[in-house]
């Protein structure tokens, strides 16, 4: 298991290397990439910010729980922070498993939970010079409504 928040450029294929094993017949690699538009508004980049110590810990919990839920070999997740440009990879998730069904499902579960639970935020920069923090998801809190 490999879970990191990093300010360095992400090479998704390194994440895939982390999970490779001769027992696994399927590897699903998801890359999130900064795209040049958001709901039709032209985007030049995104600044990602994280509560790093907590985010790393939250990623680890997600990976452990997903690994216990699906018959998979290993998971690696790397999320970038700092100023990213269009085309830069913001997150890479690699899952290896003996069979593809578990690899796809576990991969999807990790990215969905990451987006709902991990303390990371993004501020989009637009072509017109404007910037704004994007609306996110209120994380589930014990005892919360």
């Amino acid at each position, binding site marked *: 298991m490999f879970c990191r928040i990093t300010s360095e450029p992400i090479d998704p294929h390194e994440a895939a290397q982390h999970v490779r094993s001769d027992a696994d017949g399927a590897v699903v690699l998801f890359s*999130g990439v900064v795209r040049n538009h958001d709901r039709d508004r032209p985007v030049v980049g995104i600044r*990602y*910010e*994280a*509560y790093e*110590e*907590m*985010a790393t*810990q939250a990623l680890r919990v997600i990976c452990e729980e997903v690994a216990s839920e699906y018959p998979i070999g290993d998971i690696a997740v790397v*999320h970038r922070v700092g100023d990213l440009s269009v085309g830069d990879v*913001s*997150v890479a998730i690699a899952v290896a498993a003996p069979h593809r069904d578990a690899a796809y499902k576990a991969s999807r579960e990790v*990215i969905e939970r*990451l*987006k*709902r*639970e*991990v*303390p*990371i*935020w*993004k*501020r989009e920069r637009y072509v017109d010079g404007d910037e704004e*923090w*994007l*609306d*996110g*998801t*209120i*994380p*589930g*809190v*014990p*005892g*919360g409504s």
Partner: protein
Amino acid sequence: MTSLFFASYRDLVGAEEIVLDLPEGSTVSQLVEQVRSRPGADALPEAPAVAVNREYASIDTVLSDGDEVAFIPPVAGG
């Protein structure tokens, strides 16, 4: 105890970190009230998501000396 502010909440509060001394037995809710009484910070929600010592915690959590209380805006990773 130390309060941490990220992203849009940091912009509202105008600080990354505030150290406050609250009476023994105070709750997260009381800490939030204190913070919201500062200029500008009243734009924070009355019951924001918080993490105490890096884990999500309820607004009713009783705080101890040295706790790290993070105010967590809606998350948007990925």
